[in-house]
C-alpha cells in the first residue's frame, strides 16, 4: 500500500467549502480531468423521519421531486436536463435522500436553476401524486413482494427493531402508500427540504469561485426552514433471540441472521468493517470457505455491515443449495462467530482486510460521481467527509485483540434476529 497519497489525489480532495446565510452547506471539489460535473444534493431526511401510517413518504416524495415546481412544471426537469446532455437520478435511504445530476460543464447554471427551483417552490399536483403512487407500488411489487430476498430483509428489520423507525421499510408498507396525501407531502417539503437541512457536493470541471457565486445567486434567496424535529433514537437493548420462518415457493432455503450493532459513528465501526471483510468478501473469506466449500451447504454468502445514523445491524445472508439444511448453516455460522470471539483473525486475514478496505476507499473516489456520492454519504452518516477519509487510518490501527473484543460484544445469541426461508414447494414437485 502507498504510504502517502500522491499529490494529484491530494489536490482533488482540497475543496472550497461554504455555508450560505440560509444554512445551505456547499462543498466544491474541482477536478478538470474531464469536461463534466457531478452535482449531488443530500437532504438529511429518510425513512427514519417518518411515522406509522405514512411510511414510504420519504421515497414517494423523492419521486415527486421530479414532477414539477414553479418555474419548471411537470415533466420539465428531465427534459431540460437531458436536452443539455445531462442525466439525473436519486435515491432514498433510511437516513438521507440524495439527488444527483451529471452534465457537461457548461450546463452548470442550467442545473442550478433546475435544482434551486424545486428546492424553492416544488408544486405537488394531485394527478401526478396519484400516478406516482402507482409507480412506487409497482416498484414495491418488483423489489419486495415478488422478490424473495426483498421479502426476507423486510421481515428482518421489522423483527430486529421494536421501536426505532428502522423497523419499517424505506419503500413503505403497501397499505400506507395509498394513505399518503398531498398535504402530507407539502408538510414534508416544508419541514425537511429547506436549505438548512441540505448539503450540496459539486465535483468535477468547475471554477470554484465562479461556481460558488452562481450557487449563491440561485440558492441564496431560498428561505431558511424551521429546525428539523429530532428523531427518537431509542431502541431497547435486545434481550433474547428473535425468529421468524417464512414458507414460500422456492428452489432452496435461505437464512438471514442479523446481530444488533452500534451507530456508524461508534469507533467499533472500523473494526466491524474489518470483520465483515474477513468473514464475507471473496472466495478466501471465512464464511465462504466454511459454508460454500467446507460444509458445502451454501451457494453464496453475503455479509453486510451497513453504516447508519441510528442503531445498526450486522447481517449475514446464506443462500443455501437445494440440498442444504438451514439448521446446519446456522450451526456452521455460529461456530465461525464463536471462533472469532475465541481466537480472532490470523495476522494474514487482518492484513488482507485492512489493505483491501484501504484500497476500497481509493476506489470509491475514482470517478467524480462516486466521489460526490461517497463524500456526501460520509457527511450524512459520520458528520463530515473528512471523517470518512480518516477511516483508512482507523483500519490501519485495528488490532487482533480489538477484533476479538468487538466480536464478543456483538455476536451474542440474545442480540440475534434470524429469518429462515423454507421452500413450500419446488418447481416440478407442486
Amino acid at each position: 500500500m502507498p504510504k502517502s497519497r500522491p499529490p494529484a489525489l491530494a489536490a482533488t480532495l482540497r475543496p472550497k467549502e461554504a455555508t450560505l446565510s440560509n444554512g445551505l452547506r456547499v462543498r466544491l471539489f474541482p477536478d478538470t480531468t474531464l469536461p463534466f460535473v457531478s452535482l449531488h444534493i443530500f437532504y438529511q431526511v429518510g425513512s427514519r423521519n417518518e411515522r406509522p401510517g405514512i411510511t414510504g413518504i420519504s421515497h414517494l416524495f423523492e419521486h415527486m421531486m421530479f414532477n414539477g415546481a414553479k418555474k419548471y412544471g411537470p415533466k420539465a426537469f428531465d427534459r431540460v436536463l437531458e436536452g443539455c446532455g445531462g442525466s439525473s437520478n436519486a435515491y432514498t435511504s433510511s437516513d438521507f435522500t440524495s439527488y444527483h445530476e451529471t452534465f457537461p460543464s457548461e450546463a452548470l447554471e442550467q442545473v442550478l436553476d433546475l435544482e434551486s427551483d424545486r428546492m424553492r417552490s416544488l408544486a405537488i399536483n394531485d394527478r401526478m401524486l396519484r400516478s406516482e403512487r402507482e409507480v412506487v407500488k409497482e416498484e414495491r411489487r418488483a423489489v419486495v413482494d415478488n422478490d424473495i430476498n426483498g421479502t426476507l430483509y423486510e421481515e428482518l428489520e421489522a423483527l430486529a427493531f421494536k421501536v426505532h423507525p428502522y423497523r419499517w421499510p424505506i419503500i413503505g408498507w403497501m397499505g400506507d402508500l395509498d394513505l399518503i396525501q398531498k398535504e402530507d407531502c407539502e408538510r414534508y417539503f416544508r419541514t425537511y427540504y429547506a436549505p438548512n437541512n441540505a448539503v450540496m457536493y459539486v465535483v468535477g470541471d468547475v471554477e470554484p469561485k465562479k461556481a460558488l457565486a452562481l450557487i449563491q445567486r440561485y440558492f441564496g434567496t431560498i428561505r431558511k426552514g424551521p429546525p428539523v424535529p429530532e428523531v427518537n433514537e431509542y431502541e431497547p437493548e435486545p434481550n433474547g433471540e428473535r425468529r421468524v420462518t417464512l414458507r414460500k415457493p422456492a428452489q432452496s432455503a435461505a437464512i438471514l441472521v442479523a446481530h444488533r450493532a452500534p451507530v456508524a459513528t461508534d469507533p467499533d465501526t472500523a473494526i466491524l468493517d474489518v470483520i465483515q471483510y474477513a468473514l464475507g468478501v471473496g472466495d478466501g473469506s471465512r464464511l465462504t470457505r466454511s459454508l460454500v466449500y467446507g460444509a458445502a451447504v451454501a451457494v453464496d454468502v453475503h455479509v453486510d455491515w451497513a453504516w447508519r445514523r441510528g442503531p445498526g445491524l450486522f447481517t449475514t445472508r446464506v443462500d443455501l443449495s437445494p440440498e442444504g439444511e438451514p439448521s446446519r448453516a446456522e450451526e456452521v455460522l455460529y461456530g465461525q462467530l464463536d471462533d472469532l470471539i475465541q481466537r480472532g483473525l490470523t495476522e494474514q486475514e487482518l492484513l488482507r482486510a485492512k489493505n483491501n478496505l484501504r484500497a476500497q476507499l481509493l476506489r470509491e473516489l475514482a470517478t467524480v460521481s462516486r466521489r460526490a456520492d461517497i463524500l456526501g454519504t460520509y457527511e450524512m452518516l459520520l458528520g463530515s467527509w473528512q471523517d470518512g477519509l480518516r477511516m483508512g487510518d482507523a483500519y490501519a490501527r485495528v488490532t487482533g485483540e480489538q477484533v476479538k473484543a468487538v466480536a464478543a460484544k456483538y455476536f451474542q445469541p440474545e442480540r440475534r434476529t434470524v429469518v429462515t426461508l423454507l421452500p413450500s414447494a419446488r418447481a416440478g414437485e407442486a
Partner: protein
Amino acid sequence: VAKSKAPTLQPIHLPVPVELKLANGLTALSVERGAIPLVTAILVLPAGSALDVPGKEGLADFTAQLLRRGTARFTAEALEDEVELYGGNLGVQAAPDSMSVSISCPSEELGRMLRVMGSMVREPLFLEEEIAHAKRRTLGAIANDLDDPAALAERALNRALFGRHPYAHESVGRMKAVESFTRDDVVEFHRNAYGPAVASLILVGVVPPRAKLQVLLEEAFGDWKGGPVALKVFPVNEPAAAGVWLVNKEDQSQSQIRVGVQGPWKKDPRRIALLLLESVLGGGFTSRLVEEIRVNRGLSYSVRSEFDRLRSGGSFCVRTYTQTESTRELLQVLLGEVRKLRERGMPRGELEKAKRYLSGIFPARLESSEALAASFADMKMFDLPADHLTRYREKLWEAKLPWVNGVAKEVLFAEPPAIVVVGRAKDVLPQLKGFGEVRELTVAELQ
C-alpha cells in the same frame, strides 16, 4: 437566467493507448489515466458461452470459474491470498462472446497480479474436488435463478429468440448439462479455447512505463503457448419464434414482460441510428416508453429498450413489468409506441435532443477505469475501428433524420416479436388474446 443550449462538444482527450505485443501473439494495451494510484487489468478471450456445444451448455462459464480454484503455482486459497493481501480484487466472467479475468489493484502490485492472472489462464489444475464443488455451486445458482421472475423472463426470451443457437442459453448454463460436466470436458475446452494469439490484455489507470511493463508481461505471460489461432463464429441462421411465451409462476402479483426480436450484430453500420432509436424509444427518463408507461399511466416503475449487438447476431428487446391485472394494457401501450416510432419516425427536434443527450453523457460513461478498459477490450475483441470511441460524438451529430427514421422501419419489430410473460398464468392468459399463438412454459422447462 440560464438558457438551455447544446453542449459545445469540448474534446474529451481520450488517452492514447500504448500497444505491446509478445512473441506468442498476446496483445496488450496500456492506458495511462487518472490520479488514483490504482490500475485495472482485464484479460479478455473469445472463450464465451457461444462456444458451448449442445448438451454442454454452461461449459465456458464453468471452465472460467474454475481458473481461480487452483493452478500449478497457487492452491485456491493461496491464489486468493496473493490477490487480496495486496489490496487486489479479482473477478472472472463469461459472456456470450468472450470471457474475461479482471483485477483492480494498487499500482505497485501490478506485477504480482499479472503473475496470478498468467498462472490462471496458462496452468489451471481443474482438480476433481473443485469440479464437484463448482457443479454444486452452479446448480444451486441456477436453482436460485428459477425463483427470480426477471431471470426466468430472460431465460424464456433467449430461448424464443435464438432456438438452437448457443445464444439461446445463459452463460451459467442448463442444469442437465452442468450435471454431465467431467474433468475431460473442462480440460478440452480450456485447451481449445484459451491461448495467447486470441487474447488481449487491457491496462487502465496509473500504469508502469512501457519498458517496465514489457518485462512484467514477459514474466507473467511469456511462456503461454497453444490454443486457437483464429476465431470460431456460429452465425444465427434460424428465425426467432414469434408469438407469446407464458411462464406460470403462481405466487406472483406482477407480470415480468419481455418483447423482443433478433437484431443487428456487433459491427452493423447502422450503430449510430440504433443508439439514437434506443434512446428515443426507451432510454433515459424522457423516452417515449417511460413517458407513456411510467409517467402518464403509472403502469410500471421501469421500462427500457435495448439493442444487444453480439458477434454472430443480436437482439432488440423491451423489458418491463406491471401488476398482473395491467398486463394487457401494458402490452398494448408498449407495442403501440414501438409501432408509432417504426411507422411514423421521429420529428427533427426529438432527434436533436437525443443527440445532445447521448453526446452529453458519453464522457461520463468512459470515466471509470473499469468502463474505459471494457471499451478498449470490446474494440480489441471485435476488431472495431480506431475511431470507434474518438469519433463517436461527431458521428452522432452527422446522423440525418431520414436515415434514422429509415432504420426504424427495419429494426423496430419489423417482424412480429416474441412476447414473454412470467406471472400468474390463470389471470394473465385471458389478457393475451390477439398477441399471437400462446405457448406455455413451466419453470422446470427453463432450468
